[in-house]
């Protein structure tokens, strides 16, 4: 059974790929904009990869709240029905 921790680590890998970092460089709570210099395109790229990985549809209105790894996990959980 996939646990929340595993989901979080999967998401960490996705986020690290988008920001071209190693997964262990992506912390749970680091703000994407402040820490990784994220812009709106990077955010959309994360959304697209999460949708593909988990086969869910996440409205782009959620982008504003997807500001760190835990927040992405929370948004995904709502749409994946966790």
């Amino acid at each position, binding site marked *: 059974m996939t646990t929340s921790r595993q989901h979080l680590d999967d998401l960490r890998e996705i986020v690290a790929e988008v920001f071209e970092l190693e997964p262990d460089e992506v912390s749970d709570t680091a703000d994407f904009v402040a820490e990784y210099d994220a812009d709106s395109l990077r955010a*959309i*790229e994360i*959304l*697209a*990869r999460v*949708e*593909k990985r988990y086969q869910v*549809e996440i*409205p*782009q209105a959620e982008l504003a709240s997807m500001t760190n790894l835990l927040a992405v996990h929370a948004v995904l959980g709502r749409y994946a029905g966790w």
Partner: protein
Amino acid sequence: MLDHARIRALLPHRHPMVLLDRVESIEPGVRLIATKAVTVTEPCYRDLPDTAPASAYAYPVSLLLESFGQAAAVLWLHGGRRPDGLLPMLAALRDCVLEHPVYPGDVLRHEVLLEHGGEGVSTASGTTRVGDRRVAVMGSFLAVVRPRTDLPIPTTREDPRP
């Protein structure tokens, strides 16, 4: 196969920015093969002087990428339920490698795979060939939809040159 009229119905682009001639085959939501012939009548060659060297006729990489992106858009939008008033827009490219230049007379053959076709975002990958030669590898094309009202679209066709 999709003829040009069908391509035009799916894409918001218009002359001279429709960079796709024909869709040879399509497996909706999965893969597509589309062609685009490069010709010297295209606007990108209009202002080349007679003294321009042969290399100046290399097809602009930006247009090659755009052409592939339009093929990806057709694959994404074909058969989908896309609400009116939304336009597909190329957002980000990753891991695209141009291997050989393309010249007038070449026919680009885009082979596109839809990696993810969501309601609001999509990613596609693939290759572009001229004959048997691969000229480009496209790692990831990320596209989004945006409301038409966000993007002013010219209603008249004007030549800005004097």
